[in-house]
Each structure stands twice: as structure tokens, then as C-alpha cells.
């Protein structure tokens, strides 16, 4: 009940006209970046972040979080209407969403998607409401070795559970660590990896990296594939919306199952993209008519959307309670918290009580605002996508570079954005995952500090990580995850040999 009282307090903070206006602005901007090719949630939040430096942290996080919800919704809109996933996590929505739209059921598909997305997000927020103070209290028992253990676990999970080649995950992650290490070392104060470039002294901002990797990189991929909008006529009729909302509760099995998948993948570092694919796969496998998937089954829209949003929302929990974000966007927001002078982690709940609960309350409100707004503005954003690329393309590029400049007011960052853009393009095409890179850039310093502090505590004895049951459990789980690819490879080998003989 203590959480409930805090939540009510949060609502009283979030329900001011200023904050509701921020939510609306955030959702609209989010829809815009979600709809536009090349701009997505991580990139959009990075672009907006420098503009919030002068705001108070609670207002700033409400704006950014609303933008995140908006971007998730916007990504679904383009998936269904144009067969272009605005976000990697809405790829699975295109499988059945676009066929539905082509059959003339665009409104039905959109309404189902938005309602399910809103449902998934709400389940996620409810989970956060109940678990957050418990998770924070649990995390209060953490000291340096446990913290390092949690970081280690998060990174190991990417290698062990990610869908990409473990080598490529390692490459991406280590690149993130190396980039994060550039500049002043926070413990000894010496300058690292600057190679005599003055411009590198302050370090490389992860925001600049995200704008290049996700923004320019994504644009390069889109350009290379050639833009072909298979647009479907869109007119959202209120009656059709109403009918679909009445039909929607019939998919309760898919909704509950996908919420569970989404929440799990959101809290563990699986992330929304993995969650939506997994949920789609499960829906297909458990369906009585799996062969109809891909031709416009409503469950094929409901399942990935629910899981996507549940995961996106739940990714906020480990970020707030432990300081370990489990998606690229959450990593960017966490970087924002640190820039605003807040320290993500368990202390946040006691020191910044208002901030945390205003954020959680705004997640309830923001998602309701998002569902209403997105249904109202579908025609508007569909029209934006009809603007020819010769106009909208250069504007997107300019916005990316302006955003990068506003981080440090340093023209050197333009070149970094270009380089990161090329790297992002190559990595995306060759299936190197990008999320570990961002996560490593944001968390690298903290993980290193935790490791060094643990070493100072134990005078250089590595067994400190196994000195108490809590740290030992976390570290062992991390090691198990880390070696999972090796084990599964071995198992496959043995099985193949036994089949042969």
C-alpha cells in the first residue's frame, strides 16, 4: 500500500497542466520520429535530451518518456500502413499488420495495434509500480562487488541471450567500452585513448554516437534499399474504431501471453525487439491455424505490439532501480539522468522520491494520452510520410547534425556523427547488434568504477566477487550466461556426432 500512496502522490505531481502539455508535446514528437524513417526512439530521445538540460528533471523525464511512448506507437503506424517498420521493434508488426491494411482493414489493424500496445504498456507500468520499491530496497544491499556483478550480468546476458553471433556482440560491446574510456579517467585523472587529439579530451558523448549509429546509419540503410512507400489509403472512421475496440477483448489470451513475454524480456536485457519477435513466434506456434499468419491474422498484430510495449515499459524498471538499462533507449535516458545530476540506482527512490513517482504516474497517463493522440493523428502522420524524400531526407539529416551539435556545441562532433553513421550502416547490414555498444558506452565508466572500488575494498583480491552469497549468485549467473553460446555449440556438436554414428 505504501507504493499506492506514493503513486497517488506521483499523480498529483504529474497531473499539472504543464506536465500534461509536456506529455502531449512529447507524444507528438515521438510519433513524428517514430514515423520518419531514420529517426527512432533512441535517436529521438538523444536529439531531444540536450534541449532538456535547463528543465527540472521531473519535467524533463516526463517529456522524454512520453516521446519514447510516442515513438513506439509511431513505429507501429508505419509498419501497418506502409510496410516500413519505423522502429526495429515493430518489424514483427509488419508481418500481419500490412496484409490487413491491404485487405482494407487498416483501421482495424491500427486500432488493434494501439489498444494492444496500450494494454502491454499498462501491464508493464503496473509491474513497475509493484516491483520498484521492492527492487530498490533489495538493491540497497548492494556495494561495489554486487554492482559490478549486476553490470557483468547485464553484459553477459547480451552475449548469452542475444540473437546475433556472440563474437559480433563482443565486438560491439568492446567498441562501446573503448569509446566510453576515451578522455579523462574518473579514478586516476589521466587522459586515455586521446592520441593527442585535443577534441577528444572531454570524451566521446554517447548521444553523438547514438545519433550517428541509429540516425545516419538507419538512413543509409533505408536509402540503399530504395524507398518504396506502398501506401494504403487511410481514413480512420470512428465507427470502425469503436467496433474494433469491442472486438479487441477477444484476444485476451494473446494479450496476456504477450504481456508476460514482454515484461520478462524488458526486465532482462532482451529488449523490445526480441520480445516482439518472440511473442509473434509464440502466437503462431500456439495458433490453431498457423499457416494463416503472414496473411493478416489479428493475433499477428496484437501479439508483437503488446510484447513490444510491455518490454519497452519494463525496461525502465532495471534502469531506475539498479541503474542498468535493458534497452538502447533506456540507456540514453539513463545517460540523461546522470547529466541532470541524478544517480540512477536504489538511492534514487529515497533521495528523489518525487521524481521517481512522478515518472511512474506519467507512464500511466502518457500511455493513455498516446493511445488517444495516435488514433486521432493517423491521417496527419500518414500525410507526412507522403512528403517526397528529396525534401524530408535532407531535413532529417540536418536535424541529426543539429542535435549532435547541441550536445557539446562542438563542430568536431559532425565528423564523429559521419563516422558513426558509416559504422552503424555496416554493423546493421552485417548483423552486429548496436544496443550493446550504446549500453557499454553509458555503463562502461560505472562498471569500471565498481570494479576498481571492489578491488580497493579487497586489496586486489578477485575472490571479493564471491565473498557473499548475493554477489556470488549474480556473478555465477553472469558467467553461466556468458558461456551459454559455447555450451549450446558443444551440445549441438555432440548431438550431430551422435546422429551420424
Amino acid at each position, binding site marked *: 500500500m505504501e507504493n499506492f500512496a506514493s503513486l497517488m502522490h506521483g499523480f498529483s505531481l504529474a497531473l499539472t497542466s504543464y506536465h500534461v502539455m509536456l506529455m502531449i508535446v512529447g507524444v507528438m514528437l515521438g510519433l513524428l520520429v517514430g514515423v520518419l524513417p531514420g529517426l527512432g526512439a533512441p535517436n529521438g530521445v538523444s536529439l531531444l535530451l540536450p534541449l532538456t538540460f535547463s528543465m527540472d528533471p521531473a519535467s524533463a523525464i516526463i517529456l522524454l518518456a512520453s516521446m519514447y511512448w510516442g515513438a513506439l506507437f509511431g513505429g507501429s503506424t508505419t509498419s501497418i500502413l506502409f510496410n516500413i517498420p519505423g522502429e526495429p521493434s515493430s518489424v514483427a508488426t509488419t508481418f500481419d499488420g500490412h496484409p490487413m491494411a491491404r485487405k482494407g482493414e487498416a483501421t482495424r489493424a491500427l486500432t488493434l495495434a494501439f489498444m494492444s500496445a496500450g494494454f502491454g504498456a499498462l501491464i508493464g507500468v503496473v509491474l513497475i509500480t509493484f516491483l520498484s520499491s521492492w527492487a530498490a530496497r533489495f538493491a540497497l544491499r548492494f556495494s561495489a562487488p554486487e554492482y559490478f556483478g549486476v553490470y557483468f550480468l547485464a553484459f553477459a546476458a547480451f552475449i548469452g541471450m542475444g540473437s546475433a553471433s556472440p563474437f559480433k556482440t563482443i565486438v560491439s560491446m568492446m567498441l562501446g567500452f573503448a569509446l566510453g574510456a576515451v578522455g579523462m579517467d574518473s579514478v586516476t585523472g589521466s587522459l586515455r585513448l586521446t592520441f593527442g587529439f585535443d577534441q577528444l579530451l572531454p570524451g566521446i558523448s554517447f548521444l553523438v554516437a547514438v545519433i550517428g549509429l541509429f540516425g545516419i546509419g538507419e538512413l543509409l540503410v533505408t536509402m540503399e*534499399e530504395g524507398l518504396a512507400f506502398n501506401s494504403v489509403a487511410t481514413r480512420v472512421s470512428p465507427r470502425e474504431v469503436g467496433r474494433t475496440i469491442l472486438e479487441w477483448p477477444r484476444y485476451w489470451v494473446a494479450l496476456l501471453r504477450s504481456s508476460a513475454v514482454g515484461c520478462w524480456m524488458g526486465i532482462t536485457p532482451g529488449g523490445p525487439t526480441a520480445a516482439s519477435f518472440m511473442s509473434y513466434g509464440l502466437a503462431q506456434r500456439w495458433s490453431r491455424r498457423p499457416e494463416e499468419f503472414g496473411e493478416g491474422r489479428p493475433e499477428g498484430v496484437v501479439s508483437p505490439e503488446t510484447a513490444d510495449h510491455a518490454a519497452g515499459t519494463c525496461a525502465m524498471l532495471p534502469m531506475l532501480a539498479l541503474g542498468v538499462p535493458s534497452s538502447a533507449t533506456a540507456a540514453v535516458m539513463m545517460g540523461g539522468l546522470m547529466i541532470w545530476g541524478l544517480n540512477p540506482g536504489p538511492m534514487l527512490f529515497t533521495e528523489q522520491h518525487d521524481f521517481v513517482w512522478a515518472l511512474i504516474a506519467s507512464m500511466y497517463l502518457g500511455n493513455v494520452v498516446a493511445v488517444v493522440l495516435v488514433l486521432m493523428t493517423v491521417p496527419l502522420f500518414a500525410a507526412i510520410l507522403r512528403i517526397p524524400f528529396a525534401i524530408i531526407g535532407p531535413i532529417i539529416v*540536418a536535424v541529426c547534425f543539429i542535435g549532435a*551539435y547541441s550536445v557539446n556545441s562542438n563542430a568536431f562532433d559532425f565528423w564523429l556523427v559521419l563516422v558513426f553513421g558509416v559504422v552503424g550502416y555496416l554493423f546493421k547490414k552485417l548483423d552486429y547488434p548496436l544496443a550493446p555498444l550504446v549500453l557499454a558506452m553509458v555503463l562502461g565508466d560505472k562498471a569500471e568504477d565498481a570494479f576498481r572500488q571492489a578491488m580497493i575494498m579487497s586489496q586486489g583480491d578477485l575472490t571479493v566477487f564471491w565473498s557473499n552469497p548475493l554477489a556470488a549468485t549474480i556473478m555465477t549467473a553472469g558467467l553461466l550466461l556468458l558461456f551459454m553460446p559455447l555450451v549450446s555449440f558443444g551440445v549441438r556438436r555432440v548431438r550431430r556426432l551422435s546422429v551420424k554414428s
Partner: protein
Amino acid sequence: MSISRFAMEIVVALAVCIAGAIVVTGAMEFGIRWSESGPEAGYFPFYVGLLLIFGGIGAGAQAVFARSDSVFLDRAQLQRLVSFFVPMLIFVIISVFLGLYVGTAVYLLVVMRFQGGYRWPFSLVVSIGTVLFFFVIFEVWFQVPLLKGPLEEFLGIY
């Protein structure tokens, strides 16, 4: 003419190894050993660099053992890529010297006129309108100053 995925995998894996080697040399400058107060400044970057090389070799080996003949980039795709990248590069160069506003205006104008095939008047109106819009949003509303060049100085806008 096309670039195979295999070739690209190998090139990127090699680039990763080189990056790893650079990180390792950079880390050596600061001591990679343990001192009394735990690891020295270069300790972490050193192993990060080594792991980069390890990952690069692994990814390269995977590409060799599971060799696929798929195409990374064909000619038409390359053309589209270049026609997008080169104007962007020019935009960056102009922006560095003349400021972001002039850069954006010229970039949008040129792409609209020569790649979009719009007439001069329409292209001019859209590009200047966009820049004014950016100015109002960033400079006036959010008070975030963007990079300016000689033109803004001449006009007396700071």
C-alpha cells in the same frame, strides 16, 4: 559489379582487429598492471582492446567457415548510397565553415533542385522556410545556440 557479403565481413573484421590494436597501444601508455590501489588507468582498455581483436578474429572466422555467397551491395544500391552520402558530406563541410543554418539551406536547396527535380522558386521557399523554422525552434524557443558562420555575423545575429 557488386560487393559480396563475405568480402565485407572480412573487411569489417579486419577493421575491428586494427581498432583493437590501436586501443591496446593507447592503453599501454598508462600502465596496464595492478598497482597498490587496484588496476591502473590502462588496465581496462588493454583487455577491452584484446577482446576486440578476439571478437574480430572470431567474427572473421565465422564468415570463413559459414561462407555465404550473398551480395552485400549491388551497383544500383551503391549508386543510391553515394547519391545520398555525397550531398550529406558536402553539407557537413559547408556547415563547419559557414554554420549550420547556411549549410542546411544550401543542402536542402541543392537536393530538392537537382535530385528532387523541383523548380528553383519552390526549392528556395522550402529551404529558407525550414531554416527560419529551425531558428525559431532552437534559438528562440529552446535557447540552444547552433553553430553560426560569417553570414550570421554579417546580419548581426548571435
